[in-house]
């Protein structure tokens, strides 16, 4: 969501570094708890800015996401200080919940827990904050600080994506269009600029080049129909991109831990609940999409026009260590090997065995184009629909599924439908990048009678919810959606 840019604070990366440096130096934490997702993004900004690469794995091995507190290494909680990190505090529900988890469930004494929050609202009184960069923020300033932080994360390249996403960096030595067109042979791709000014490409429902092997290894009753399946390509700097596959099959809610025996043990051994199985299968499914990506880039790589290097653990551009925040015992080295395997499968796959599209379809949704207008409209239609579903249906706190959002596409023309669905998928990316929506998970019943864990999208916090409700109360379908909120 775009807020009025007048008097926005000029938040720089060095502010975040200084803020967290101070908190970490003074606390000397044995463990850092990041409140998903912006807390994790804040810490990631701090870690990735430090070129002293030895620190990277060391810090991440001491980090737990608030979503994964129950898995965290108990020995790290037994002594020393614990630092909770978040971007902002208003009602205090999320930090309060993390604190409760530590103090009441893990029996950590309150004195050992320190709280670092970048922006503190003037009315926040639920928990006492030990470190802050901005304090006593009124409503307007709180929003602006939040917005400025989100911009910073976007400028650094969509750091608000889920903590469990895997990225592979690539460097291109060809034109951007040549690179994008090659990738669009995996599926319809939408090119757009993020709100942070970074170029993005989202490929909707990419083909699985190795589909039989993938499907054979999936546990029974897992479905890949009508699920989130995409490849995001995010510009990090000039000619450098991160390739981020995202794929969340829907998983039976009564799945047992040993049902994941078909997938690599470095992932399957961490399955101890349907929720963890959902995320682990999501990681596994994403790995398969790397084969698709590198099958698409095979020729460009062969010609030296695209370089791919999967970072080693501890490299400055290490893109795996952050997974330790969610799965503290994950074998990162083995995961890295797996990524290499899937990349190689793709690179070596002969073109006649591929099912890639002969004529890639890339849609430009850059400002000024007709697709950009439709993208903006879909952005608001999605927010309105998520708000409606959250209010309309009892027990729908986790938001809307992709399948429900796809009902917004009314076109009956097949070709137009494909484009519309790709645009909707991209608009969804934008709502997440803008921190309007946040991914979640819900248990939902399917037409085959099975209840499954499904990827959903819900509104990210009270501030955003209030604004969406205000707009939706006035915006009726005949009127154009707003561009800015004042």
């Amino acid at each position, binding site marked *: 969501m775009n807020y009025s840019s007048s008097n926005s604070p000029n938040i720089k990366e060095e502010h975040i570094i200084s803020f967290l440096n101070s908190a970490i130096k003074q606390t000397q934490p044995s463990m850092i708890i990041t409140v998903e997702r912006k807390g994790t993004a804040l810490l990631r900004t701090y870690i990735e800015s430090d070129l002293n690469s030895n620190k990277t794995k060391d810090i991440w091995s001491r980090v737990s996401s608030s979503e994964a507190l129950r898995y965290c290494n108990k020995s790290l909680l037994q002594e020393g200080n614990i630092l909770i990190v978040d971007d902002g505090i208003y*009602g205090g529900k999320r930090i309060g919940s993390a604190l409760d988890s530590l103090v009441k469930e893990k029996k950590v004494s309150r004195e050992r827990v320190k709280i670092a929050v970048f922006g503190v609202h003037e009315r926040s009184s639920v928990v006492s904050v030990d470190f802050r960069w901005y304090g006593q923020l009124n409503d307007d300033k709180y929003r602006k600080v939040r917005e400025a932080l989100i911009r910073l994360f976007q400028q650094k390249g969509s750091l608000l994506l889920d903590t469990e996403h895997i990225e592979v960096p690539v460097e291109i030595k060809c034109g951007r269009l040549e690179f994008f067109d090659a990738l669009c042979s995996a599926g319809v791709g939408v090119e757009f600029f993020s709100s942070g000014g970074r170029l993005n490409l989202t490929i909707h429902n990419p083909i699985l080049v190795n589909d039989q092997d993938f499907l054979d290894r999936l546990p029974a009753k897992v479905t890949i129909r009508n699920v989130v399946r995409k490849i995001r390509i995010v510009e990090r700097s000039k000619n450098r991109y991160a390739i981020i596959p995202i794929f969340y099959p829907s998983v039976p809610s009564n799945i047992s831990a040993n049902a994941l025996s078909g997938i690599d043990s470095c992932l399957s051994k961490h399955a101890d609940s349907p929720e963890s199985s959902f995320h682990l299968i999501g990681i596994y499914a994403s790995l398969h999409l790397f084969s698709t990506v590198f099958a698409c880039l095979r020729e460009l790589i062969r010609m030296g026009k695209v370089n791919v290097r999967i970072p080693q653990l501890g490299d400055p551009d290490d893109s795996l260590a952050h997974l330790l925040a969610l799965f503290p015992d994950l074998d990162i080295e083995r995961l890295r090997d797996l990524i290499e395997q899937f990349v190689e499968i793709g690179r070596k796959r002969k073109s006649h065995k591929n099912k890639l599209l002969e004529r890639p379809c890339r849609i430009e949704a850059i400002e000024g184009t007709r697709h950009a207008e439709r993208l903006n409209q879909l952005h608001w239609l999605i927010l309105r629909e998520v708000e409606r579903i959250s209010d309309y249906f009892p027990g729908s706190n986790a938001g809307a599924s992709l399948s429900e959002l796809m009902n917004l596409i009314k076109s009956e023309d097949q070709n137009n439908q494909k484009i519309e669905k790709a645009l909707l998928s991209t608009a969804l990316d934008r709502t997440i990048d803008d921190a309007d929506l946040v991914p979640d998970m819900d248990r939902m*019943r399917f037409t085959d009678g*099975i209840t*499954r864990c*499904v990827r959903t999208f819900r509104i990210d916090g009270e501030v955003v919810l209030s604004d969406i*409700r205000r707009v939706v*109360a006035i915006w009726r379908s005949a009127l154009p959606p707003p561009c800015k909120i004042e």
Partner: protein
Amino acid sequence: MSYGREDFMMHCLDTCFLLTFALRKSFEGYRKRDEQFVGFSEISADKTIRLFDKLWEKRPDKKAREASGRIVDFCLKRNFNDKHGHRVAFPIADETSANGKITLLPVLKTIEIIDKYVPPDAKMFIRHEEKTSWGSVTRLEPQVGASRVLKLYKRNLLDSSDMKLLEYFGNACACITEREIIALGRHETANDTMLSMLWELDRWKQWTEEVFDRLDKHEEINTSVATDEAHRLWQCWSFARECVLKAAVFDNNAFWSDRIAYENALNALFMPGTGVHQDVLNLLKGAQHPSQEIWEDPRVSSLGFTAFCCWSFVNYFVGTLFKTNPFQSHVFSKRLSSVANKDVIEAFHRVNKCVRVTREDRPQQFYLNYLHSITGAPPNGIVVDMDPRDVWKGKIGLRDFIKGAETIANWIIKTHVIPDLENLRIQEI
């Protein structure tokens, strides 16, 4: 209008004046019939507003009226769900609560807040407190007359046809009782009634799970526990009651059946000679579906048994507890004073029947005499054998009674309530 906060708050204030004026017109009609009429209960005021909003939205020529700057839609959430059920609410333009999370504020609450800060001659309601045996009830006397709405007229937000409709609406409401307005305000289509009932069931489920979770933590059920939990027990009872009223499974009278009240309302309004203006009748036809279309729709009728099950359970469980020490002397037990001992015992027998009905066997349309057809042992092994009389005589301890009741509640939730909720959002495979 813009989406800016200042404009939005002004729009909300204008809406408050308009809606209170509509209530005022109804109030004047009621006063003509009954000089003793003090004012509306909060629920009937809320449902009157909801009904008015529905009719206003159905008015023709919206685009033309909007183009000329008129108010065509109110910036309301018609179905705000909180612990009081469905209410009409404004999205708040800015966070005002120190407790954080409110993003919708009921219209009546918004007016109450405004009234706190304005001088007496500018208040929108006079609030009368009526004492009852189980507490006090607020009655609202609207204070917004045509002169206060005039400024909206002068700003061109309303024209004379809008003003006339407000008056016609008020006159129409005066033809029906508060109970009938509540039914008409609550229901309009089968889909909305189904959702409304599911909301009540979800709320009932949440409160029931919470109360058992909390009661389980106590070895002894003493005065302190009663003080802490009586309110929650009453909420369980209250939401089951709301659901069963909406399900209209009791067809004896309008008090117990939203359907009967709804039909009575429409019959009264459409009866020749009542003087209800044709404009209002036309809008009603567009906004309110016939009662058969609502209550005989399988989406609604299939929930009747679940509603009845929950209702029987709460009368059995809460009814038994509230007639024992230490709950008996608690103020919340007085809210169940209408539930006699015989009602609790009857509920016990009904629950005994209900637990024999699997999800597959539950009727598409539930009637009370269905109970006579239920025979055989419960297929699920649930035993309902703790007679309330034995609890009252002290033959069964409260801890054991609560334990047994929890098993029944869990069965109702798992067998009927959760699948009904899950069926709302079936995903395509």
